[in-house]
């Protein structure tokens, strides 16, 4: 199948307007004859479900959590970008577009990114109208701050809980539609498979997590808003339940998976303390507005610190290396995430890391506290400082935070065209679940923007274009494909439940995470990736022999839930390795040691790799097929990214 991204013709700034006009419409009386399934209720899912219901469509929404409000968008801290130029500092839609394309190291589609920047201003308006309490200035107008990879202040925020406030806004819009009877909400339901008929998505199979009932649901279109797959690394800043299952099942039913190796390692997370650790906690990028990243100048000093022979506060200015400010004077501590992460890794590899493990650098607020006062710093970041102290038992007002990079976000995801449709007709992917807007590195405060852009302002237009081609007849689950798909789901569950080996599912997950982090993390090599591929294959076959899954299907069974998710991660991990092997260049978060500039920055190979890699599933244990979508840049000039 040839990939057609369906990018509209015409000048960049007019593409979306023209496209909206050219999209087919469904008349208001017919809208109520269509049913749309929305899987996931984070920013993308909740906003899509609410907006489609407002238009008159019938929506069935699903989430595996006990309430739609608990989706992991809730945990986003720092903020959301919007090209409002309220600060009069030279921002514009074009500048947000440019920063995002450049930040993504020129591996995203121009047209998608421009549209994202264009609707970013509407998102802020919409959220304020819903009662989202963004931070404000004394004059009553909205406040902004800066994030990495940009030189303007365009990030709107609600203390360190922006994701929570935006999600609760979308949740309230969703609640209103549930109350009106336009959305039927299914909580504690996990999507187990997609049902396709003649290559078009016609419904899903779900498992009721309380009683194990396997149910089928029919619809005219299916939207996957199921988030990212960062938990393939076991330790990440994702919630424990975040998983790839919905996207992976869609992949196996014909949806291509794009750029799976593009993962974001966030520079400022609380370092790992031990094997018992279940997840990592992010310290928002906004902290880099006022915090300075540094490490001891010499290995000897670092070693003394690690041994506790000297205290961090004993180090004089001359003994400190503010390495981001030194190497990138123009952007300083606010370089993009991939650059900041890689530099922290370099420091640790040089033996200059701190903390008992030696795997951390400092994020220091002493200067800001001296300049602004402790109260001002507390007002901005209080909840983050409290969280840090809770976890580490150290007071960040008195001594610098210890931070280290951790897996945070996945730029890769299901391949979608400009309409957000996957390679399966009638099946759409929104938010982090798709691959579309961030290229090889996502800028801070852009995930919230993309989730809401897709849900509020893109899908309500584009899904109509497809529905207008489908007869407005009632749907049901009588087609044999529903029963067949259900049977596949039941068989797999039974297979999992038959596993009575000697190793827990979490142990497999942790091992997979170690392999991924070691060989497909911040630095990747041909040799390492090949080794990892073998290790994952072994681990996968061992899982299906020696894992332990307790209990039965017909009950609340968290062990079974986890087993299904980890089994899918084992398959995804291998595809990530294949993708990383294929891409012999470095770009953004994908750093191949074989491809770097003399200064050690990511060296792209635009001649050979200016494409999106879209992988096609060809059958169990078969190599996947690679399709390339060439990226065409008509508006920006591809250059070596520089933040110096």
């Amino acid at each position: 199948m040839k990939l057609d991204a369906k990018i509209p013709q015409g000048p960049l700034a007019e593409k979306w307007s023209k496209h909206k006009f050219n999209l087919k419409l469904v008349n208001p009386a017919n809208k109520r004859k269509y049913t749309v399934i929305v899987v996931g209720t984070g920013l993308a899912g909740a906003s899509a479900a609410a907006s489609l219901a407002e238009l008159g469509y019938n929506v069935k929404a699903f989430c595996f959590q006990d309430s739609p409000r608990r989706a992991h968008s809730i945990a986003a801290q720092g903020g959301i970008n919007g090209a409002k130029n309220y600060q009069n500092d030279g921002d514009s839609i074009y500048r947000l577009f440019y920063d995002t394309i450049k930040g993504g190291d020129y591996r995203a589609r121009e047209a998608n990114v421009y549209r994202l920047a264009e609707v970013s201003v509407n998102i802020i308006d919409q959220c304020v109208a819903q009662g989202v309490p963004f931070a404000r200035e004394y004059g009553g107008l909205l406040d902004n701050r800066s994030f990495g990879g940009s030189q303007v202040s365009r990030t709107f925020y609600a203390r360190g809980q922006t994701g929570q406030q935006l999600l609760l806004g979308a949740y309230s819009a969703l609640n209103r539609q549930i109350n009106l009877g336009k959305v039927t909400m299914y909580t504690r339901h996990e999507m187990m498979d997609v049902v396709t008929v003649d290559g078009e998505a016609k419904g899903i199979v779900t498992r009721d997590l309380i009683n194990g009932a396997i149910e089928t649901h029919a619809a005219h279109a299916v939207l996957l808003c199921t988030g990212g797959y960062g938990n393939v690394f076991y330790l990440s800043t994702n919630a424990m339940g975040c998983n790839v299952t919905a996207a992976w099942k869609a992949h196996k039913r014909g949806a291509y998976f794009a750029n799976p190796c593009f993962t974001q390692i966030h520079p400022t997370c609380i370092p790992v303390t031990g094997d018992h650790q279940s997840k990592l906690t992010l310290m928002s990028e906004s902290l880099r507005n006022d915090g300075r990243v540094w490490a001891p100048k010499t290995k000897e000093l670092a070693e003394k610190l690690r041994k506790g022979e000297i205290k961090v506060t004993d180090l004089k200015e001359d003994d400190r290396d503010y390495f981001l400010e030194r190497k990138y004077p123009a952007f300083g501590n606010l370089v993009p995430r991939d650059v900041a992460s890689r530099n922290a890794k370099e420091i640790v590899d040089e033996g200059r890391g701190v903390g008992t493990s030696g795997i951390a650098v400092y994020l220091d607020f002493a200067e800001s506290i001296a300049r602004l006062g402790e109260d001002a710093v507390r007002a901005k970041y209080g909840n983050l400082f409290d969280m840090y102290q809770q976890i580490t038992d150290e007071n960040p007002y008195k001594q610098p935070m210890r931070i280290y990079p951790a897996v945070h976000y996945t730029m890769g995801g299901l391949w979608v065209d400009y309409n957000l449709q996957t390679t399966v007709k009638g099946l759409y992917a929104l938010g982090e679940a798709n691959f579309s807007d961030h290229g090889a590195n996502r800028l801070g405060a852009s995930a919230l923007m993309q989730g809401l852009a897709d849900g509020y302002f893109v899908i309500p237009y584009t899904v109509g274009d497809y529905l207008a081609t489908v007869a407005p007849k009632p749907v049901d689950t009588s087609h044999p494909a529903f029963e067949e798909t259900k049977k596949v789901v039941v068989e797999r569950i039974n297979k999992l439940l038959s596993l009575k080996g000697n190793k827990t599912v979490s142990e497999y997950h942790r091992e997979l995470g170690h392999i991924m982090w070691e060989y497909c993390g911040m630095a990747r090599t041909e040799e390492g990736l090949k080794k990892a591929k073998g290790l994952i294959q072994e681990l996968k076959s061992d899982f299906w022999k020696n894992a332990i899954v307790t209990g039965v299907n017909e009950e609340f069974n968290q062990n079974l839930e986890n087993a299904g998710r980890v089994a899918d991660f084992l398959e995804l991990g291998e595809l990530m390795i294949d993708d990383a092997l294929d891409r012999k260049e470095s770009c953004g978060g994908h750093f191949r040691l074989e491809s770097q500039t003399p200064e050690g920055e990511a060296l792209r190979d635009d001649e050979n790799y200016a494409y999106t890699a879209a992988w096609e599933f060809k059958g169990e244990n078969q190599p996947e097929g690679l399709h390339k979508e060439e990226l065409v840049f008509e508006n920006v000039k591809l250059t070596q990214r520089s933040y110096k």
Partner: protein
Amino acid sequence: MSNNMNLTLKVWRQKNAEAKGELVSYQADHVSPDMSFLEMLDVVNEGLIKKGDDPIHFDHDCREGICGSCSLHINGRPHGPKQGITTCQLHMRSFNDKDTIVIEPWRAEGFPVIKDLATDRSSFDRIQRAGGFISVNTGGAPDANVIPIPKVIADEAFNSATCIGCGACVAACKNASAMLFVSAKVSQLALLPQGQPERSRRVQAMVAQMDAEGFGSCTNTGACEAECPKEISITNIARMNRDYFSAKLFKSEE
């Protein structure tokens, strides 16, 4: 490590909603003080799974104190001994070697037990659906800076809006009252200019649903505020009562 602890857990085990539950003792040994409370339970569960036993079920997700999933009653207190945090943020350094820790689910008519420590809190969703929103459709919103909102008002609305919907307020209350939860949303929207058009309809609808769900009355003991992991103030309850009574008194729209 020498400062690792050996603990005795007494955990509420209940097969399902219909089954009778009981406290079961487990030993948790070599617990590192750097572990979170839920990580300690993970380790216990790994041991149970290895023996082929059913692990202890509890709700949890983000493990950074914001999703509101975790909900354990630890030694008689929602979210355990420390103030202003959720169970997932509680670390084992808050306990001592040889401690006995009693772990129970939320206890309230509005939160029936599903299994072990997990309860059904869908009543909270139904209360939000009754009126916890501003009726604006997507598109057509005016520019975000068109209505200036004084910083103190915006900050106050934000403080109310930080509720994570965990249900600790109900679990802490001797009457199992949900007033703090409901009033936090009512206050957030009543404080903001955008929330004014539906102000009286909202408070009446949400309170009616709260009553229908079987939550008790408020007798101003303040236990909810003391146990709220987000330290939401009972001033919100006073605001809600004022709005509720004035809506009833002036019989403003239903």
